[in-house]
């Protein structure tokens, strides 16, 4: 296998790493390729893609805020900004070390008030460690809002992450974004939930405070929908795959009498062994 192909395969493993387990996946990859330097250093790009997609947070000196790195606040290779703390900085994607901290334009009054609403909303609905970001985009009417909620419990064999990101346009009153959930539960097994929801909603243009309210409403609706889906699995998807018990409502009588089922089947018309 060529080095390029190896890096591609290893990068795909990394991109599928569950929340909180990227280091474990990285160690596994290193062991499988027997510490092949070319492959290991070739993963640099995969770490960049992973961290920006997963809304990884870093700490900038002189601020206690957990700062997200994402495509919405990226201003150059490895360079990001956060207007709420008024700083820009460089990040090493593998070590997550922050450097080259410089001053950056702070939030306008409008965006500042959105940031206050976001801070209140996130602290009310996303337990620690969670984070949010308010990122002015190139046009003054556009702002990106990002939320990441994490829950890590590797000693109990589970980890989870909620990511929301929205593009808000102040002049059209439109909000467009996505919500993604990723949960991994691996105690004596391996269970993974991944979801993706497109959100399209709006807000009252004259009332900046209605932006976060609108987002809150959309997120609550979605979470209720997810809960309903879980509730319906038993009678829905699960039953369609394998019943809890046969129609007879009792377990099978094994032994010689297993033949009597077949007889009944032939008369009633059984379901054939088909795909």
């Amino acid at each position: 296998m060529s080095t390029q192909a190896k890096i591609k395969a290893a990068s795909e493993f990394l991109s599928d790493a569950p929340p909180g387990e990227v280091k474990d996946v990285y160690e596994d990859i290193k062991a499988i390729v027997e510490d092949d330097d070319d492959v290991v250093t070739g993963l640099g790009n995969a770490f960049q893609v992973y961290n920006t997609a997963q809304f990884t947070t870093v700490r900038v000196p002189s601020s206690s805020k957990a700062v997200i790195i994402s495509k919405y606040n990226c201003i150059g290779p490895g360079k990001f900004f956060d207007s709420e703390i008024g700083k820009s900085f460089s990040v090493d994607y593998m070590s997550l070390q922050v450097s080259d901290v410089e001053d950056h334009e702070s939030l306008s009054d409008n965006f500042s008030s959105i940031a206050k609403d976001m801070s209140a909303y996130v602290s009310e609905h996303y337990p620690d460690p969670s984070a949010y970001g308010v990122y002015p985009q190139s046009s003054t009417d556009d702002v990106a809002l990002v939320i990441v909620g994490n829950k890590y419990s590797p000693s109990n064999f589970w980890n989870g992450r909620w990511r929301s990101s929205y593009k808000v346009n102040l002049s059209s009153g439109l909000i467009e974004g996505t919500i993604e959930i990723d949960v991994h539960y691996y105690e004596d097994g391996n269970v993974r939930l991944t979801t993706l929801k497109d959100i399209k909603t709006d807000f009252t243009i004259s009332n900046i405070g209605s932006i976060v309210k609108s987002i809150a409403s959309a997120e609550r609706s979605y979470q209720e929908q997810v809960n309903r889906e879980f509730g319906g699995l038993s009678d829905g998807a699960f039953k369609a795959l394998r019943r809890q018990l046969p129609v007879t409502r009792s377990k099978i009588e094994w032994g010689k009498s297993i033949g009597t089922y077949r007889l009944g089947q032939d008369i009633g018309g059984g379901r054939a062994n088909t795909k």
Partner: protein
Amino acid sequence: MEDTYDAALDLLRRLNPKNVSKNLNAICSLAPDLTEDLLSSVDQPLEVRRCGKTSKDYLTCDYNRDGDSYRSPYSNEYDPPLSDGTVPSEALRKLEVTANDAFDIYRDLYYEGGLSSVYLWEMDGGFAGVVLFKKVSSSATKGNGDWDSIHVFEVEYKGRTAHYKLTSTIILNVVTTSSALGKFDLGGNLTRQVEQDLPVEDELSHIANIGRMVEDIESKMRNQLQEVYFGKTKDIVCDLRSLGSLSTAREDRKLQSEVVSNLARA
């Protein structure tokens, strides 16, 4: 070598179970020395083949494979044909045919469709085998589902009883897509082991004994997947984002503990 193998298993346990076959292939390309060991120890979703002789479908896995050929449980022949492919002895083949019939009934009662296949092979002091089930469902309202069961067992003769060892794996994936929900993709695999000594009257007793053990463990695992695993996954989503306000919840808890401690003092 030990470390590489363990790392491969750990990686497969962390990555999305629905990609196990793709990931297994990639790992074997990265570390070809691991191929034989991984293919025989990692469970993958079952493939389907058509028996040339009977035109019926059967399931394939590592246990009915010889080289690049697979043995049909109906014709007992390999596809592509092999002049010297491994087949069970005449007596064991007879039992294999009966086992396939018995588990076909099981399949109909529990799966109401789908496919089943049973393969047996010789073992010193007994015999071994695997019971396979595969079910695919697709519905506009209930979403798409994939279920694979792999039950590998060993039977050790002990005169009037036999010692049964069963290792069962279920691989399950459910995908629902709708405008309200977006895409909801839930999958998992679970492996359990059980051992039991059971009485044996004749050859057919083995089928009844294994049948009961498979039924028990499969039902238990199905319930575990539904209640424990998917239930826990739902709880984790609730931990990620709280529907109600967190500060109200904290206040309620504080109030509750005050009431409880007041009661205790009273």
